[in-house]
C-alpha cells in the first residue's frame, strides 16, 4: 500500500503534464533528418479524397524539387477546421500555411492571424478576381479555383411546358421566372425548384444573398462597411424577403429533403438551384438533356456568390520564404486543372481551364466559367462578415418560416450594426 502512493503521484503528475503538454504539439519549425526545414500546412480537406490527392501530389513534387524545405501536411474535416484555426491562433500554434474560406479572410487578416501573401503578382494577376482575397489593399490569400451557382434543368421539360431557355446574355426576368415556376407546378411538380433550403450554415448567405443583391439590396452598405441599414432592410430587401417567403408559402420550393442534388436527378423537382460541385453527377445521370442556366435577373441582373477556399500564410510563420516558394510552385496550371477536374470546381486560370476536361472550351461544364466571370460578386469583404453571415442565415430562415419581413430584417440590421459598433467599426 505504501509503495503504491508514489506511483499514484507519478501517474497524476504525468497525467497533468500530458494534459498541459497537449497545447504545445506541432509548434515551431523543426528540421528533418537530412537537414531540411519543415513547413507545416493545414487543410480543411480531410474527407475529400479527390482534393487531398492533388495536394499530396503537389507536396511530394515540391519536396522532391527541394533541398531546403519540406512541406508537411495535416488535414482536418471541414466542420472542425475553423475551430481548429481559431484555437491554434489563441494558443500561438498556427501552421505556416493554411487554407481558408474566402469570406472569412478579412476577419483573420484584421485579427492578424495571417500576413500579406507576398507571392509573385504574375501569379495573382492571372487568377480569377474572385479567387484572390484582398483586404485593406493588400493580397492576403489566393486560391486555385472558384465555385459558382446556377440553375439546372432538363431541356425536354422546359420545351414541353413552353418555357424559354435563358442564356447568359438574356437571363430570365423575375416575371418570367415566377411564371415558369407556376407553370411547372401546374405541370405536376409538387415543388418545382429545389433551392437547398434544408442545408444550414454558410450555404444560406452564399446561395440567397445573391438573390437579395439581384433585387437591389445587399448584406451591408459596401461603401462604408459600417452599417447594414438601408441595404438589408430597404424596400428592395423587403421585396426580396416577400418573394423568398412566397416561394415556400406558395409551395414552389421546399425546405426539407436531402442536401445535394438528388431530387433533381430523380426528377422530383424540375429546377435545381445548386453549385458546380454537384454538376458532374447530374451530367452523368441526365446526359445531353441537362441545361446549365444562369440564375434569374430579379431586377439588377443575375448575381452569383464568388470566393471559395484559398491559401494564406500565418503571421507567426517562421519560414515565410519557404511558404511563398511552395505556394508559387503550387500555382501551376497542371495542378489547377487537376483540382478542377477531380473536384469539379472552376479553375482559377485561363490556362488551366483550356486543358481541363470539363471546363475547357468544349467541356460540359464550360457554362460555369462564363457564369463566374460575368456574375460573381464577393460576399462583403469585412471582418464583420462572421456576424453578418449568421445573422442573415437566422433572418432568412425566419422569413422562410413566415415571420414578418420588415420586422425580421430590421432586427437583423440592428444586430449587425450593434456588433460593428462594439468593435469600433472593425478598422473601417
Amino acid at each position, binding site marked *: 500500500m505504501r509503495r503504491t502512493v508514489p506511483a499514484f503521484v507519478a501517474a497524476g503528475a504525468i497525467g*497533468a503534464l500530458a*494534459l498541459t503538454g497537449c497545447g504545445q504539439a506541432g509548434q515551431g519549425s523543426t528540421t528533418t533528418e537530412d537537414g531540411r526545414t519543415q513547413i507545416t500546412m493545414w487543410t480543411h480537406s480531410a474527407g475529400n479524397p479527390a482534393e487531398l490527392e492533388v495536394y499530396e501530389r503537389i507536396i511530394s513534387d515540391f519536396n522532391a524539387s527541394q533541398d531546403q524545405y519540406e512541406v508537411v501536411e495535416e488535414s482536418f474535416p471541414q466542420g472542425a477546421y475553423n475551430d481548429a484555426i481559431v484555437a491554434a491562433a489563441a494558443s500561438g500554434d498556427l501552421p505556416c500555411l493554411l487554407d481558408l474560406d474566402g469570406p472569412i479572410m478579412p*476577419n483573420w487578416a*484584421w485579427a492578424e*492571424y495571417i500576413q500579406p501573401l507576398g507571392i509573385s503578382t504574375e501569379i495573382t494577376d492571372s487568377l480569377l478576381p474572385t479567387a484572390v482575397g484582398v483586404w485593406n489593399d493588400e493580397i492576403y490569400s489566393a486560391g486555385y479555383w472558384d465555385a459558382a451557382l446556377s440553375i439546372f434543368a432538363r431541356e425536354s421539360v422546359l420545351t414541353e411546358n413552353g418555357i424559354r431557355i435563358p442564356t447568359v446574355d438574356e437571363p430570365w426576368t423575375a416575371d418570367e421566372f415566377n411564371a415558369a415556376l407556376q407553370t411547372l407546378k401546374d405541370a405536376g411538380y409538387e415543388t418545382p425548384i429545389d433551392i437547398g433550403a434544408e442545408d444550414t450554415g454558410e450555404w444560406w448567405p452564399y446561395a440567397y444573398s445573391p438573390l437579395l443583391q439581384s433585387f437591389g439590396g445587399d448584406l451591408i452598405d459596401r461603401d462604408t462597411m459600417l452599417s447594414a441599414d438601408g441595404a438589408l432592410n430597404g424596400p428592395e430587401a423587403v421585396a426580396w424577403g416577400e418573394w423568398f417567403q412566397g416561394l415556400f408559402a406558395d409551395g414552389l420550393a421546399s425546405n426539407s429533403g436531402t442536401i445535394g442534388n438528388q431530387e433533381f436527378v430523380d426528377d422530383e423537382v424540375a429546377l435545381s438551384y445548386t453549385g458546380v460541385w454537384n454538376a458532374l453527377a447530374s451530367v452523368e445521370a441526365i446526359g445531353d438533356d441537362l441545361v446549365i442556366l444562369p440564375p434569374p435577373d430579379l431586377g439588377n441582373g443575375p448575381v452569383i456568390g464568388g470566393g471559395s477556399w484559398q491559401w494564406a500564410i500565418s503571421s507567426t510563420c517562421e519560414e515565410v520564404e519557404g511558404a511563398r516558394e511552395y505556394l508559387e510552385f503550387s500555382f501551376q496550371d497542371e495542378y489547377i486543372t487537376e483540382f478542377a477536374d477531380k473536384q469539379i470546381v472552376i479553375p482559377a486560370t485561363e490556362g488551366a481551364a483550356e486543358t481541363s476536361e470539363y471546363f475547357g472550351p468544349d467541356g460540359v461544364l464550360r457554362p460555369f466559367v462564363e457564369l463566374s466571370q460575368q456574375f460573381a460578386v464577393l460576399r462583403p469583404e469585412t471582418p464583420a462578415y*462572421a456576424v453578418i453571415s449568421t445573422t442573415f442565415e437566422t433572418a432568412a430562415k425566419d422569413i422562410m*418560416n413566415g415571420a414578418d419581413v420588415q420586422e425580421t430584417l430590421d432586427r437583423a440590421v440592428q444586430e449587425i450594426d450593434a456588433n460593428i459598433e462594439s468593435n469600433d467599426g472593425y478598422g473601417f
Partner: protein
Amino acid sequence: MTVTPPTVAAETPQRATRRFRTTKGRETWAGLAMMAPAGILLVLFLIIPVILAFTLSFTNARLISPNPPRFVGLDNFVRAFTADGVFVQSVWNTFLFALVVVPVQAGLGLLLAVLVNRRMRGVTAFRVIFFIPVVTSIVVVSILWRFLYQPNGLINSMIDTITFGAWSGMDWLNNPQTALGAIIVLSIWQAVGFHMIIWLAGLQTIPAELYEAAKMDGAGPWRQFVSVTWPGLRPTMVFVLVTITIAALGLFVQIDVMTQGGPVNSTSTIVYYAVRKGYEQQEIGYAAAISLIFFVAVLIIALIQRRLTREKD
C-alpha cells in the same frame, strides 16, 4: 494493512504515538496525492473557466480581435435583459422546456421502472429496450428524429395511416408552434430510460418484507404503492428531480442539430444562445455574461429544490 497491533502500542506508548503521528502525516500526504489528479483537472477545467467567465462577462472581449478587451461594467447584463429580445425568448423557451420535461420525464421514468420491476418473462428485454436510447449518442438520436419529423417522414406517414388520410401531419420542426414541442417529445424519449434505471435502483432498495406486511394488512397494489413504494423512494426522487432539472436547463445538442434555434427563435435556449453569441458571432464577453446569468439561475433553482425536498425532521 498497516494497523499496529494494540499489544505493541501498550508496551511502548511513546513510540506508538510518534508512529501514529507519522502514519497520520503520511495518510494526509497520500490523501492529497490521490486527490491531486482530480484536483488538478477540476482547477484546470472548472474553476479557472468559471473565474475567466466571471471576469470576461464585464468586458467587451471578442474571440478574435486585435483590439484589447475593455471593461464595460454591467453593460452586457443590461443589454441581455433590456435590449435583446432573443435572449429573453431563449430564457422563456428554456424554462418552458424544463417545466414540461421535469415532471413528465420523472413520472414516465417511475412508471416504466415499476413496470419492469416485476418478475416476469422477458423483463430484461424490456429494460434493454427502454435503455437503448440513453446509450445512443444524442447527436445520432437528434439526426434520426429530424428525419422522423420531416413533412414526408415516418411520423407524418403514421398519422396519415392512423387517421385514414384525414390529417397528414405537418412540418414539425419548421413550424414555430410545434418545434419546441417536437424537441420536448424527443428529449423525454431519449433520457427517460436513464431515470427509469435510477428509479429501479431505488425500488430495489425497498425491503420485500414491507410489501409482505402490507399484503397481509390487505393493501391492494395502489395502496402498496402509496404507503410503501413512494415513501421508500424519497431519496431517489430528490436525486432524479435535481438531475433532470439541471439536464433540462442545459438543453443544447438537440437544438444545435435539429433547428439551430429556429424557426423564429422558437427553440433557442440559453446555452445554445450563449454558444451562438460567443462562438459564431465571437462576442465572448457577452456570451460569458449570458453563461453567468445561466449559472446563477441554475444555482437558485437547485437551492430551492434542495430546500423544498429536504428531510423535514
